[in-house]
């Protein structure tokens, strides 16, 4: 099992967690009902060490599953060894993006490096689909090295589905990010466009 983009992962997560939530509420409700009944008997006897093993397997297994099923995990860990197809570097100061291209067009399957630097506050970098769902994100921390060069905040992302994505700051950086009517001044509409993918994803 592998997710080709974050939308697939979010849908899977929605279903899986909803099933779990219904299950745990039902189990406690059943438990509560039987607590009041003298004749209630255990349906299953849960062995203590089996339960502990289940918890350990659940906690560790979840990460093993995501490492293998979500492609951006290993890509993120080894990103310094991967040569991107293109790199976009820009900065932020006083809630304004600086050096941002007017539009970024990406061919299907390309791996792109976004390198974002902050001159003052902690911001976020997030790409969003037109339906509002999140493609990817990272935090953008300010700071400089000993030579006064701004610290990098870089993320590597491979785009496998067509789409037009908006750019937003995903971290709160004070009320000056908005005008007095609440309009987000850091929102950049339609910044990224991915082309050349098949309808259900992947290169043509």
């Amino acid at each position, binding site marked *: 099992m592998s997710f080709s983009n974050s939308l697939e992962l979010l849908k899977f997560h929605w279903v899986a967690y909803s099933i779990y939530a219904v299950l745990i509420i039902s189990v406690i409700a059943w438990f509560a009902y*039987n607590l009041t009944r003298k004749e209630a008997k255990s349906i299953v006897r849960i062995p203590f060490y089996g339960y502990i093993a289940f918890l350990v397997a659940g906690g560790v297994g979840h990460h093993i599953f995501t490492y293998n099923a979500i492609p*951006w995990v290993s890509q993120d860990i080894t990103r310094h060894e991967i040569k991107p197809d293109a790199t976009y570097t820009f900065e932020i100061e006083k809630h304004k993006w600086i050096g941002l291209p007017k539009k970024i067009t990406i061919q299907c399957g390309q791996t792109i490096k976004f390198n974002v630097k902050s001159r*003052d506050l902690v911001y976020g970098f997030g790409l969003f689909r037109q339906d509002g769902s999140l493609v990817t994100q990272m935090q953008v*921390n300010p700071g400089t090295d000993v030579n006064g060069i701004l610290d990098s905040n870089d993320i590597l992302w491979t785009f496998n589905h067509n789409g037009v994505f908006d750019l937003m700051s995903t971290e709160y950086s004070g*009320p*000056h990010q908005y005008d007095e009517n609440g309009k987000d001044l850091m929102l950049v509409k339609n910044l990224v466009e991915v082309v050349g993918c098949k309808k259900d994803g992947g290169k043509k």
Partner: protein
Amino acid sequence: MSLVKNLMEGTNFDPDSLNALQKVTLRAVVMSFLFYGLVAVEGMIMRMVVTGPSNPLPPMFSHPEHYFSIMTVHPIVGIFGSTYQLVFAAFMFLVPFLTKKPLYSVKLANFVWLMITIGTALAWIAAFAWQYAPLYTLYWPLPADTEQFKVVGGIVFIVGVALIMIGTLGFIYNIYATIFQRVGVHKNKTTKELLISGFGIDGMLNLWHKLTGKPPYSKEPALSLPVVAIFRGTVDTFLDALVILGAGVLVLVYLIFDLGGSPLDVGAIDALLYKNYFWWGLDLVADGLVLIYVAGSWYLLATIITGQKLFMENVARAALMLELLVSWMVWSHHLLADQGQPEMMKLISGEMVTAFELLTQGLALFITLVTLWKARPLKMTMELKYLLGGLVGFGLAVPAAIIQADMGMNRVLHNTQWIIGAHVHIALIVGLYMTLYSAVYVLWPIVTNNTKLFSSKLSNAHYWLHLIGGIGMGAFMGMAGLDGMLRRHLYVNGEFHTDMVLAAICGSMILLAWLLFLLNIVMSVGIKGLIGIFLPAKDKTASYGIEPKPAVVS
């Protein structure tokens, strides 16, 4: 009895019959529930703003300065003004009650609730009057950003938070001084014995002796299990208070220099290092003291409700020791989206050690459920209902946390409404508060000298509204998060309208639940009784249940 008479005089509540320990406990409880109401109103304002332009609120609430100042004080009032007050009050009553010793100092207990109340009020005033809004995260250098915030607002806010932390240190001192007092049953105990028991080491040694075929290390541990949980959780409370105080001093220094016309260079502080420092301390609240205090509360409630010994008590004691180590090493799960954070820290601290919380909390859930099950049939009392509600809350919220503390999932869940809804609000409103309500119902007859509750129907209505509203609001916020809605962002155009309307409906159920609870309490103790709680106690006894030789307030 007429309703008006009830409102004035309550059922059979007599504040003059309360001793000093009971009164100081009730004072903090009253303040806690007043702050809870404030936090519920704040939450509803924010929920309604994000439903979109058709919300009935005045436009000022949608202005970013106003909206984010509410968002800044919402957790300060909720966590410190309400939860800390309630937990501290309960524990400063329970430790003397369970150890059969007097509280070290009732004066100090009064100082604690006053400091937390004044501190919370100051932080709230800073946001209300000067719209100081760096959020509770205080990400450097935002709290020292005097282009966006007024210096005086920042100073008042930081002084407020500092007072809360000073009150917290007072609570810690009172708890440990009480535990280490060598009087009553602990007259012949050494500090070493109390320390070993407090850290849960005797439970570990008992397990080890059992495995190696030796007689138990300690047949009668010096401290009962709930006191061990309080002892352990308070270690994290102490470390957390030091970290928050440290961050507060840093911000204060920058603000004062700015006020003096010689601003310091904010770039001198590394933002990522600061994040690590701050999250290490702040996470001791979320993943340290809350989980440990809650586990201890579950054990206490289960034994009081069933009247039986706790199932696998030695394992529970040992698990509390394990939680100590776990809680100190999990903070990196807040920094999974920070690309400068070393990958090994994300992997080990952020993912693997965090996953251990599934084990420690799962263990507490298991032990509590088995203890209840072995004692069946049980009467479905209010305290049992609330305890089960608390178990549901953490049963939902802890796995949600483990899911998001993953490098793959975090990329799409970080800073979204999923985190604050499906995890934080369900953990706090359903998990923590229902556990605390269970404790309130257990302690009510003890602390109020058997005051009759005004209405069991109101209690039940409160329960169901709180449970359904809490789970519902968290669920719809979580769904909006999966659709991309951020948690620290202002949405004024109804971008996530349907989910937010449903979340607001559920939020209003929580608010209504609180009003019903408040009504029930006021009708039980009466307005005269409420005032009487704040008048000096005639009976200066600082303990409960160890008469006829009452200890006297220091």
